[in-house]
């Protein structure tokens, strides 16, 4: 068990950094504009990240497992570490990246090293969701923007009542955002460990229990929560200041749009509902919350007529889509080689 926890550390580290960074996407504006205290935001975000990960984290994680079922702990450890290192490199190069793209690259790297086949149709499905994520978030933002505007016009809401509604809205959107983040992105943090999971199920009061997979996700989500508590305060303040030109309602629209996109790509219940009603199923894939935010912010900027499309930013995102998985796969492949040949560890079964 000690060895398992040691190998899990790379995933927990990625979880911590995810919390430190993506926590700001959820509550950044509310905290930055002083509409909500950091402590309140951090508690809500932590609780809902854990709930999202435990209750709905399996969907996106299963997709990653279908891409490559990493069945040896050292292999999973190295895939997570390669993903984390790739993110570090990308951030240093100022290329917009996401843990989702890095982990997919690392899994493909493991597949290549272990001579396991990679489902190319699944890769293309995953890649298409990365493109779809900011576009869909933008579309949601436009729809919600007009609906909100219409509601405010019809109901003639006074400024102070609007302020109260916005505060409550930011809390609800933040909680939903945290739930969606936990459900969608826990796959990046713990997904690769599912195949080599050594944890046992956890009995809960009133006859409930958590499966070994849910316990694994809970550990990952706790790491995310620690990231939110220990390091997201500064990021939240920065995000708040940067989006300060946006009104709190616009910020709320951004958070809700981003959360909806993350939820769409994470909810097994919604996935099954769509299939059972003969609708096209939305693949359950971990997507980038930051890129969803960018999509929503750009869409609002466009309809307000204040800014045009920032092609430079879009270029950076596209480079990230291509470069991140390739570099991550390369780093993972080389590291697995080192781990297997220098440290004599079994990286696949």
């Amino acid at each position, binding site marked *: 068990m000690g060895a398992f926890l040691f190998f899990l550390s790379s995933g927990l580290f990625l979880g911590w950094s995810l919390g430190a960074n993506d926590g700001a996407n959820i509550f950044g504006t509310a905290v930055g*504009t002083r509409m909500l205290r950091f402590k309140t935001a951090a508690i809500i975000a932590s609780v809902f990240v854990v709930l999202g990960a435990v209750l709905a984290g399996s969907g996106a994680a299963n997709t990653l497992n279908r891409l490559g079922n990493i069945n040896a702990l050292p292999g999973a450890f190295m895939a997570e570490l390669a993903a984390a290192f790739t993110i570090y490199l990308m951030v240093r190069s100022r290329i917009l990246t996401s843990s989702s793209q890095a982990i997919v690259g690392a899994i493909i790297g493991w597949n290549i090293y272990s001579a396991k086949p990679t489902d190319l149709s699944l890769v293309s499905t995953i890649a298409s969701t990365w493109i779809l994520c900011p576009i869909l978030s933008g579309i949601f933002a436009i729809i919600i923007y007009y609906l909100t*505007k219409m509601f405010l*016009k019809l109901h*003639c809401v006074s400024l*102070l009542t609007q302020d*109260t509604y916005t505060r409550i809205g930011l809390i609800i959107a933040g909680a939903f955002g945290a739930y969606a983040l936990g459900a969608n992105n826990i796959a990046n943090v713990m997904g690769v460990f599912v195949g080599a999971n050594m944890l046992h199920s956890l009995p809960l009061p009133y006859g409930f229990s958590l499966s070994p997979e849910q316990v694994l996700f809970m550990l990952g989500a706790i790491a995310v929560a620690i990231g939110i508590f220990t390091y997201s305060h500064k990021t939240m303040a920065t995000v708040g200041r940067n989006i300060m030109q946006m*009104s709190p309602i616009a910020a709320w629209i951004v958070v809700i749009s981003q959360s909806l996109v993350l939820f769409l790509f994470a909810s097994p219940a919604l996935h099954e509902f769509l299939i059972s009603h003969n609708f096209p199923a939305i693949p359950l894939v971990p997507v980038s919350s930051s890129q969803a935010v960018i999509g929503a912010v750009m869409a609002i900027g466009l309809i307000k007529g204040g800014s045009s499309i920032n092609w430079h930013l879009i270029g950076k995102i596209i480079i990230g889509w291509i470069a991140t998985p390739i570099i991550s796969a390369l780093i993972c492949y080389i590291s697995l080689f080192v781990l297997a040949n220098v440290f004599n560890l079994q990286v696949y079964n």
Partner: protein
Amino acid sequence: MFKIKISLFPKTKSLENKIDSFHDKVIDSAVLFRKAIKVFLSQDGREEYRSVNKQIKKIEHDADGLRREIENQLYAQNLLPNLQADVLELIESMDKINNQIHDVVYKFHVEQPEIPAELHRSVEILCKQVAECCENMGIASRAFFKDLSIVRDYTHKVYLMEQESDLTCNEIKKSIFASDLPLANKIQLDLLITEIDQIADIAEDCADKLLIFAIKRDI
């Protein structure tokens, strides 16, 4: 957390009431200003003028108190964090209307200027225009808090009344300096008429600011 949510609505309601009362004061002040000058111009209304002057002074004092309470509540409860500065600037600008009205009415009380009878009608018209300008500004400012869609309608009226008051003011000044009054009286009346017109100028400045704040308030 739950406690905060429950108490949030009543606190907001109390601030809304204070903002409403503040706007009532601006409108009351404008209406009384018109009455005060009318009473002053009627020769036998000295007692009534003193009473109206007192009422305006009380309104100005109450509005100052409300302004301070609004400012304190906004900051203490961190309400409208993104619009705090705008709201405070608007309330302070609106308060300047009250101050100017009070100053003018008090000046009439202290200086007791002698206004030739042929100018009475024009001075009354000027005061009517200035008062309407302030009333519309009061309604526009209230609309900023309650119904953003009508702000533009009322600020437009403010601009119109301000232009009208400028024209009337110029006409009166021309008449003053064309009259046979001693130069000292001419200068005294000129200054008083300028001060009356300045009330409309202050309202116009408020309208300028309000239109910018309204754009910022839009989502």
